[in-house]
C-alpha cells in the first residue's frame, strides 16, 4: 500500500509537499481546550493532530512515589488506535513507553519542580492523528498545557526535527520523509536559555551534517516558540474577556 516516492526533493529543490528544505509545515495551536484538565493544548502540526493536558500540582497516587523535596512529573504519550495507517492496539507499545520517558525528560528541565514538594503533575498526550514528528509536536503542546495549568516554568519548550532527505539536510520531516529519508534528528529547546532538552537521532550523518541538522532544528524550534507565545496570548485574552464579562 505504501509505495516509495521516486524523488523526495524535486529539481527546484522543493519537497513532496512543496516546502523548501528549511520550511516548517503549517502549525496551529490552541490553548485551554479541555474543561476538565488543569491545563491543555491542541496542536495541528502538518497533519499531526495532538491533544495534551496537564493535571496538578496535586496529591500523588500511589503515595509512596511522592518526593519530600520536589514535585514529581509523570508523562504518558499515547496514540489513538485510529491515528495511524494500520490500527494500533490501545495497549502502550515499547515505542510509546520510550517516548513518554524522553518527552518527560524534555519538559522537566523547564519546570521549577522544587516549588511544590510532595506533589505530582501528570501530563497526558493523545496523538489523534500521526504524520511524522509526533514526539516534537507533543512536547510543543505539552509545554503549553503545563503553562496553562499554571505550573511555574523557566521557559516554554519548543520542539522540531531536522533530518536528511536524499543528500539534503531539511527541516521538519513529515511521515514519508521520515520513513524514506536517511536521518531524523528530533530536538527540543528552551529558547531563552539556549538549552537542548531533547535530542535523538536515527540514520547516518557525518559530523558536519549533524551540526547543520541541529542548527536547522533549533531555528525551527524558535519559529514554533513564536507560535506558542501567540497561542498563550490568545488564551489569556480569552480568559480575561470571560472574567470581564463575569464581573
Amino acid at each position, binding site marked *: 500500500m505504501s509505495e516509495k516516492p521516486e524523488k523526495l526533493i524535486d529539481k527546484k529543490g522543493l519537497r513532496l509537499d512543496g516546502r523548501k528544505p528549511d520550511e516548517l509545515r503549517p502549525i496551529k495551536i490552541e490553548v485551554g481546550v479541555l474543561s*476538565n484538565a488543569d491545563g*491543555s493544548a491542541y496542536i495541528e502540526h502538518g*497533519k499531526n493532530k495532538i491533544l495534551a*493536558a496537564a493535571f496538578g500540582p496535586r496529591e500523588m497516587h500511589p503515595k509512596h512515589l511522592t518526593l519530600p523535596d520536589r514535585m514529581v512529573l509523570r508523562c504518558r504519550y499515547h496514540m*489513538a488506535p485510529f491515528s495511524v495507517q494500520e490500527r494500533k492496539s*490501545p495497549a502502550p507499545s515499547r515505542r510509546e513507553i520510550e517516548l513518554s520517558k524522553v518527552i518527560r525528560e524534555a519538559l522537566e528541565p523547564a519546570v521549577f519542580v522544587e516549588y511544590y514538594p510532595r506533589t505530582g503533575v501528570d501530563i497526558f498526550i*493523545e496523538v489523534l*492523528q500521526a504524520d511524522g514528528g509526533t514526539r516534537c509536536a507533543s512536547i510543543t503542546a505539552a509545554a503549553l498545557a503545563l503553562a496553562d495549568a499554571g505550573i511555574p516554568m523557566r521557559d516554554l519548550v519548543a520542539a522540531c526535527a531536522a533530518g536528511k532527505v536524499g543528500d539534503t539536510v531539511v527541516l521538519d520531516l513529515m511521515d514519508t520523509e521520515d520513513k524514506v529519508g536517511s536521518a531524523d534528528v528530533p530536538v527540543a529547546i528552551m529558547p531563552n536559555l539556549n538549552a537542548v532538552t531533547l535530542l535523538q537521532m536515527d540514520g547516518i550523518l557525518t559530523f558536519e551534517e549533524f551540526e547543520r541538522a541541529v542548527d536547522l532544528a533549533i531555528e525551527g524550534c524558535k519559529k514554533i516558540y513564536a507560535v506558542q507565545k501567540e497561542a498563550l496570548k490568545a488564551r489569556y485574552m480569552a480568559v480575561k474577556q470571560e472574567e470581564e464579562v463575569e464581573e
Partner: protein
Amino acid sequence: MSSLITRVRLKQIENLIEKGKRLDGRGLGDYREIKIEQGIIEKAEGSARVLLGKTEVLVGVKIETGEPFPDTPNEGVLTVNAELVPLASPSFEAGPPDENSIELARVVDRGIRESKAIDAEKLVIEPGKKVFVVFVDIYVLNHDGNLIDAAALAAVAALRNTKMPNYEIENGEVKIKQGYTQLPMRAYPITVTLGKINGKLIVDPWLEEEEAIDSRISLAINDEGNICAIQKGGVGYFTPQQILEAARIAKEKATALRKKLDW
C-alpha cells in the same frame, strides 16, 4: 464514581428538578447543544467528533481484513472499543479498560449490532475465510456527563462517514485497488439516556447530575422507532411505570434528533 460534588450542590439540583428545572437552565426533557463534525481524522476510514455540551467524544473507524467468527462465516466483524483517556477527566486513569469503559463500548456495540446498522454480509470477501473487520474506537476527550449518548451518536456518525477500500481477488490473494466505497449501512440507531432523581426522569444528565442520580436507563431506538437495546445502570431502581415512561420519552427524543440530523 467518587462523590465530586457537595451535598449542598446536590440538594440544589434536587430542589430544582422538583420544580421541573435544571441547574443549566434546561427543561427535564432537553438535550444539551449537540455538534457533530465528520471526517476530521483523514487517516481513519471514518471519523466523527460529537460535542454534547462540554462532553466531547471522538470516534475513529479503521477497516482491516481478517477472519470471520466460525459461527457467522457470511458476516464481517464489528469490534467496538472505548478508551476513557485520562486527559478527559481527573477520575479516569491510564491503564487497561475498566468496567466503565467496557460497559460504554458494549452498550454502543449493542445499539449498532442489534439494529443491524451495518450490512455485515456485504463485508465478506471470501465466505468463512476473509472478511472486513470494522474497528470502532471510541475516544472520550472530555467527560461532562452522558458519555453513552455522545459515544453512540459519534459512532454512528463515524460509520456514516466510513469508506471501505475497493479490492479484487487475484490468484486467491486480496488486492486493494484504487478508490473507496461507502460502508454499507442499513440503520442509524440513536441512543437516549435518562436519569432518575427523586423519582423524576431527566434526559441527558450532565456530570453534576450524574453524581446526583441514583440510576440511569439508556435506550437505543432504530429508524422505525423500535427499541433495539437497553441498559439500566447505577445503584438505584426504576418502577415498571418509570421504565415505560422512559421508553416513551426515548422514542420521542430519538425521532426529534433524527429529524434534526436528517438521518
